[in-house]
């Protein structure tokens, strides 16, 4: 009912007469996703008095009747998502403090709308005076508390004029006030909606229809139930919104809109029970009518519900939408996969760099503890000696200042990879260990082959290869420190100074190797004709960034190996 009210309202406000049925029909069609989306976007942040406020509500309810469609249309989720977000946004825009889950109230309204149309037993009685009266009190103030106050004020005014309706407005009002104070925010939302829509501009026709509805519904109602019961039952309203809507509908024509509000609170529960099955049955029938109204948008529902199965174009549309969704999902997944593919840390982990680093760290801690133990077990003089020795070893392991940048140009007839291998071996010859540099050399060879002539000439492809190449080179380097540390620990004769020097040299070679790799890839990228220089520049920046990252990892690994060098000297 809220919906129908507000929609009629809107129409009335804008000067449309009763032939709004078609208009409403149109709104009911599936296309109103877009309507809503659009409306929401255009909607001003701050709801303005009267007309705008009313409009606001109309929009809000728009969101609701969509929900009905959403409910039955699981295969078209993008609009659904948009919808949900929209209605949430609307709630936030309204300062009503209503954080309710509106969904529960949603589904019924539009059915009512049409329902009303069918029962066009006209009644003129509720018509004339209200619009004026109500509009005055409708100064939009969505705060519930104030709404309640306003309700009180308005009803005093109203009771004079409408005393003849046979309902004690005042008593109803007090019920309403009491009710409002303790019902859930969800119901509050409903009330404020009723109130505002009702107050803003009641549509005579709608009122007439509503009253008929009410009379119908009134019949099976046995006795008024206590407000407390009503409140309790409000909870149930969430789960059976149709009944709740009906109750609200029924309450509407009772004397005044205000009493309608209060009755909405009170009678909802009653109707749920007493109206019960009859009401639900009627609703069900009407729902089916609406659903099968030949509306092209709703036809999808039938297909989904199995009611109009075999409806070919609809089925194909459903399938098309399902496919579109699947495609979208695939695209998102692919993007995520790609993002992961060029994620340096993930790649470093995949190449076992992280686990080698972790193991090296464990070893490093263990050895540090052993050194501390040894220091504790000796007297002060010896301890000072040990401290000095440790310090000396640490100094040996300090990275040299950027020395001879290009030591010796690769000699003739020696490939870059072999030269790299040679440098590594030269650096570590005093280490006294047999480190396996082949994986590093092989990786370098692969990269050189790739750079010198690979079929993959896309900017993105090169970028990916660059990040992965850097991550792998770093992982392999870290592994060298881990292995060196393990082997040093089982080495029988230690020569700490040589070892420290060798590892320092190795670090120099490896960090240089990393920048060499970065340069190779960025040169390749720069040499590529590209229409998107900005993208290329971003990639190049990233490659140098990751190269810096790599060097940090390598130097950290070297530092972790320090205690292993130190323990050889103490």
């Amino acid at each position, binding site marked *: 009912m809220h919906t129908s009210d507000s929609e009629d309202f809107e129409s009335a406000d804008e000067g449309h007469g009763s032939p709004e049925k078609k208009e409403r029909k149109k709104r009911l069609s599936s296309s109103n996703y877009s309507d809503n989306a659009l409306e929401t976007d255009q909607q001003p942040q701050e709801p303005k008095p009267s007309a705008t406020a009313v409009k606001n509500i109309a929009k809000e309810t728009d969101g609701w009747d969509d929900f009905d469609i959403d409910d039955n249309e699981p295969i078209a989720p993008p609009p659904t998502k948009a919808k949900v977000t929209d209605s949430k946004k609307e709630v936030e825009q309204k300062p009503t403090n209503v954080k309710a889950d509106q969904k529960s109230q949603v589904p019924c309204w539009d059915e009512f709308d049409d329902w009303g149309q069918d029962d066009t037993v006209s009644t003129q009685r509720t018509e004339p005076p209200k619009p004026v009266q109500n509009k005055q009190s409708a100064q939009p103030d969505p705060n519930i508390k104030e709404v309640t106050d306003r309700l009180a004020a308005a009803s005093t005014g109203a009771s004079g004029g409408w005393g003849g309706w046979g309902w004690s407005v005042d008593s109803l009002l007090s019920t309403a006030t009491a009710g409002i104070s303790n019902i859930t925010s969800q119901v509050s939302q409903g009330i404020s909606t009723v109130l505002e829509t009702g107050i803003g501009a009641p549509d005579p026709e709608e009122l007439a229809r509503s009253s008929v509805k009410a009379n119908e519904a009134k019949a099976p109602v046995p006795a008024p139930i206590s407000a407390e019961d009503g409140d309790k039952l409000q909870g149930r309203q969430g789960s059976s919104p149709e009944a709740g809507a009906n109750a609200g509908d029924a309450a509407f024509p009772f004397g005044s809109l205000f009493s309608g509000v209060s009755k909405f609170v009170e009678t909802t529960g009653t109707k749920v029970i007493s109206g019960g099955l009859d009401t639900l049955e009627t609703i069900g029938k009407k729902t089916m009518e609406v659903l099968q109204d030949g509306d092209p948008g709703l036809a999808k529902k039938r297909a989904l519900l199995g009611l109009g199965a075999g409806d070919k174009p609809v089925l194909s549309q459903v399938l098309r939408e399902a496919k579109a969704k699947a495609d979208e999902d695939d695209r998102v997944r692919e993007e995520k996969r790609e993002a992961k593919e060029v994620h340096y840390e993930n790649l470093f982990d995949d190449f076992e760099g992280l686990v080698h680093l972790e193991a090296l760290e464990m070893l490093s801690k263990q050895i540090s503890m052993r050194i501390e133990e040894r220091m504790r077990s000796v007297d002060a003089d010896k301890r000072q000696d040990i401290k000095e020795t440790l310090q000396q070893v640490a100094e040996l392991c300090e990275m040299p200042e950027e020395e001879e940048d290009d030591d010796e140009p690769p000699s003739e007839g020696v490939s870059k990879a072999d030269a790299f291998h040679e440098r590594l071996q030269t650096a570590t010859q005093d280490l006294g260990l047999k480190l396996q540099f082949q994986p590093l050399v092989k990786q370098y060879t692969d990269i050189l082959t790739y750079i010198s002539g690979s079929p993959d000439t896309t900017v993105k492809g090169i970028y990916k290869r660059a990040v992965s190449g850097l991550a792998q080179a770093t992982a392999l380097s870290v592994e060298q420190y881990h292995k060196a540390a393990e082997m040093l620990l*089982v080495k029988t004769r230690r020569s700490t100074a040589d070892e420290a020097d060798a590892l320092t040299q190795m670090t120099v070679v490896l960090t240089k190797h990393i920048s060499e790799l970065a340069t190779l890839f960025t040169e390749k990228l720069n040499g590529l004709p590209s229409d998107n220089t900005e993208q290329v520049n971003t990639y190049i920046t990233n490659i140098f960034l990751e190269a810096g990252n790599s060097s940090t990892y390598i130097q950290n690994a070297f530092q972790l190996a320090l205690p292993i060098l130190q323990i050889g000297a103490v």
Partner: protein
Amino acid sequence: MAYAYLFKYIIIGDTGVGKSCLLLQFTDKRFQPVHDLTIGVEFGARMITIDGKQIKLQIWDTAGQEAFRSITRSYYRGAAGALLVYDITRRDTFNHLTTWLEDARQHSNSNMVIMLIGNKSDLESRREVKKEEGEAFAREHGLVFMETSAKTAANVEEAFINTAKEIYEKIQEGVFDINNEANGIKIGPQHSTAGGAAGAGGAGAGGAAGGGCC
């Protein structure tokens, strides 16, 4: 690869019992008769699925040589599972189990799931340790027991996966505090960014559809 959990395993046992071969069979599904001596620790990883959840097993394959003992001990910490391996054709490897077990219990967390494995079950003719002996040892020390062959792959999958299942059950029972990485369990990368991206995509599509309609 995205995973729900990561379990850290260690493989321990005397040198030459086939620890690295078990790992290779499990991760690469192949057997390499001649294997370099493991230095310190080597790593392997494989994804498995338990209860519909992707679990990454990160396996630390330790050196069995006595010389590396003190090093490998520092790797026990933070393991959720251990495969304690002996060679059914070499009784001494079985006899050393007690030492290995003490070591493992001393240097790892008390909840670590330990699976006892009698490897080389394909070499029945050279068997020196009866299956019943292995079972009895396992029973006595509260271990799970299995005879495997890294060569034929018999029971290799089962050994790794059953251990994972046991760890998983312990997580479900709340025995393992999964937030404490010292237990050898890490929670996989969360999908928060994934959800956000999907939501944004959906909304974007909705907006586009709306534009078309109007």
